């Protein structure tokens, strides 16, 4: 660890903190339907979209209708993306003449992009045409992000409204998120990326003759436009196999700064949006502190673990000052690689600028654990906010048990039905992660996909199902996941993690919206102070820890001790 490293981490996180409030307040205006500085340009586009789609923007939906609209939209997205991938060879913008994507891979990829996971069982430069990348994958980078934000805004309205039956209109929220938030900012980010060196061309590749006379084929494509929304929508699906470690996707420290800012900005900003819309900006900042403190704690651990490095390599003569550089890029070094790993798994981004599989055991454990907490620090765009709200409900319930009062959150009484629905949502994670991992750990056909032996092999399996269920998409990428077993089971895990979580969540939101909103009663436990922040961090860590500690002990934790004991596999 060096002072320069900490300064780099501090600079980037400071920049995120600076933009949180303006972005959050802007989004609060957008989703309250107020005019903003983009309305003169985008208002006519928005109204034209509603007219063509037959949407009456003032007609609101109850929780069930809102959820069904979201599901129908996702199903339509799945069908169109699956078709594009299966018919790729007959579609335009295919300079490398890639073949159609096989059925199991197309299924996995379509689910992956429409659930905002962006798990990639394929390698972009050898599988996907420019048309598939732009009109297939990148479209869902926008729409899955907008869907997540819409759901979070619906949950926010449940707490903001008094005895309400409706939560807003899904089509309106989704359209506004895309038009007013994701598209305009992505244009700016894409331009900045191109300036730092990210290619943006319709050419498929270019051939170079190296100084030693060899031929080098350099893959190209319309990358910057996709990279922008990939980060800003916490999608994480790379244009190339190496994702944001590829020098074209992430050419230097400045591009890297922008990447990390973009993947954290909306998720943190939405916490302020939540506070503003429920009438207590302070409540939003309390959630900000909870997510922020866990995130910073995680960066400290990963940066320390990667700096201590791998004793098995330093014993061979490598300079210990270099830390663990296997699977890391020279231009990012340890600090920016560690920060990226934590930011990408604290959110549902899942892009990587270093190979997680080659991190030290503890450096790899922390990203995995962040996802097992439910991807809420600060989580994906939208999904992070609603995940934090679920934990807030559980926290006030536990606090209520301790002091013997009916728990309240933001003036809404939390009763048995809400707590049961919140727990139902939270328990989807261990069900899918541990269930699938347990089966995969004994099936010969799934074990043959492992790239590493010993406890690290188990970590590869556990990481895959954690990432899929958490809708994250990063990987211990040595695992060969492009097999029918993994394509199908990881696809199901992604569906469970998104829709299995959202269904009870929206039912809870519907039930909360219908309740009366009491003005803060004197006996209620304050949920915007330091005590609540500490208690909720404790609840998050304990719930996550109790569920996953035994599995982690068999993977990264035992590997850590074996590494220091000099054992190899």
């Amino acid at each position, binding site marked *: 660890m060096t002072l320069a490293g900490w300064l780099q981490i501090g600079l980037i996180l400071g920049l995120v903190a600076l933009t949180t409030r303006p972005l959050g307040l802007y989004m609060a205006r957008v989703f309250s339907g107020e005019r903003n500085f983009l309305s003169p340009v985008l208002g006519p586009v928005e109204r034209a979209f509603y007219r063509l789609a037959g949407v009456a923007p003032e007609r609101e939906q109850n929780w069930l209708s809102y959820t069904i609209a979201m599901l129908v939209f996702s199903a339509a997205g799945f069908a169109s993306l699956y078709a594009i991938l299966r018919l790729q060879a007959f579609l335009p913008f295919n300079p490398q003449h890639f073949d159609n994507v096989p059925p199991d891979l197309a299924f996995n990829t379509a689910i992956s992009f429409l659930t905002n996971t962006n798990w990639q069982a394929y390698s972009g430069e050898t599988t996907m045409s420019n048309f598939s990348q732009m009109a297939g994958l990148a479209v869902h980078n926008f729409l899955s992000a907008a869907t997540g934000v819409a759901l979070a805004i619906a949950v926010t309205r449940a707490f903001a409204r008094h005895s309400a039956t409706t939560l807003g209109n899904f089509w309106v929220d989704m359209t506004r998120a895309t038009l007013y938030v994701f*598209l305009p900012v992505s244009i700016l980010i894409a331009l900045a990326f191109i300036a730092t060196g990210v*290619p943006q061309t319709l050419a498929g590749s270019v051939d170079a003759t190296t100084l030693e006379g060899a031929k080098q084929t350099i893959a190209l494509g319309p990358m910057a436009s996709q990279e922008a929304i990939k980060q800003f929508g916490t999608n994480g699906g790379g244009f190339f196999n*190496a994702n944001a470690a590829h020098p074209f996707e992430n050419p*230097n420290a400045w591009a890297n700064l922008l990447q990390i800012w973009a993947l954290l900005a909306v998720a943190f900003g939405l916490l302020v949006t939540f506070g503003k819309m429920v009438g207590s900006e302070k409540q939003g900042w309390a959630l900000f502190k909870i997510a922020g403190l866990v995130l910073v704690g995680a960066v400290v651990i990963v940066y320390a673990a990667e700096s201590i490095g791998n004793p098995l390599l330093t014993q061979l003569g*490598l300079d210990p000052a270099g830390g663990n550089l296997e699977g890391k890029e020279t231009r990012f070094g340890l600090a920016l690689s560690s920060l990226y790993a934590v930011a990408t798994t604290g959110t549902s981004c899942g892009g990587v600028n270093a190979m997680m599989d*080659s991190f030290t055991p503890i450096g790899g454990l922390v990203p995995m654990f962040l996802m097992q907490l439910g991807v809420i620090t600060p989580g994906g765009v939208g999904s992070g906010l609603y995940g934090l709200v679920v934990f807030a409900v559980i926290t006030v319930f536990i606090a209520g048990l301790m002091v013997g009062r009916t728990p309240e959150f933001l003036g809404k009484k939390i009763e048995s039905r809400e707590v049961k629905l919140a727990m139902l949502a939270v328990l989807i994670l261990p069900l899918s992660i541990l269930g699938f991992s347990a089966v995969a750990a004994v099936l010969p056909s799934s074990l043959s996909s492992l790239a590493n032996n010993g406890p690290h092999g188990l970590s590869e399996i556990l990481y895959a199902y954690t990432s899929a269920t958490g809708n994250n998409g990063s990987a211990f990428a040595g695992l060969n996941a492009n097999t029918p077993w993994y394509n199908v089971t990881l696809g199901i895990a992604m569906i469970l993690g998104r829709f299995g979580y959202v269904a009870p969540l929206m039912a809870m939101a519907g039930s909360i919206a219908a309740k009366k909103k009491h003005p803060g009663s004197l006996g209620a436990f304050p949920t915007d102070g330091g005590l609540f922040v500490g208690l909720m961090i404790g609840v998050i860590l304990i719930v996550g820890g109790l569920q996953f500690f035994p599995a982690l002990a068999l993977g990264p934790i035992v590997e850590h001790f074996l590494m220091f004991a000099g054992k190899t596999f």
Partner: protein
Amino acid sequence: MLAHFRPAVVLLALFTLLTGLAYPLAMTGIASVLFPWQAGGSLILRDGKVVGSALIGQNFASARYFHPRPSATGAPDPKDPSKTVDAPYNADNSSGSNLGPTSKALIDRVKTGVAARRAEGWTGPLPADALTTSASGLDPDISPENALLQASDVARARGLVAGTVRNLVLAQIQKPWMGFFGEPRVNVLKLNLALDGLK
């Protein structure tokens, strides 16, 4: 439920046109005017021919050139396309080694690399980047320590004075902004081009 079909299908179609075609094609058009060199892949030309990209590493095996980091990229085996063979710096198939910290394959590879460097006369602790593969397999940079250690070997192979090559390396070091932002590094392709330019 049927009432949701029209908005679902129409909005999906409209957003596909807007975010899937209009947005990337507009960015491509703007990029070709504002930043044509970057948008095209930061290609480096020598005598009118593309010799590589400033951002993408390339393989150097000759003793007359500085060497990049080891690369884990592969390519389909020409004899059996279902298998892959090592193909360092294959810029059409980026990949890291994905070997975990307790992997025997990783330890053995580093051990072989260390023995080779010791045979070349490298002493003391070795720069970690010289013996580890990068995440992309296309890392264009090496650390300044790594480059300086290679300088005397390259000078000898070219019959140059060691100090000249050393000065060339020092001139090619990209320093962090304000002394802290970014890592100090040397772009191997640019360094080797500068080396070829010495006469």
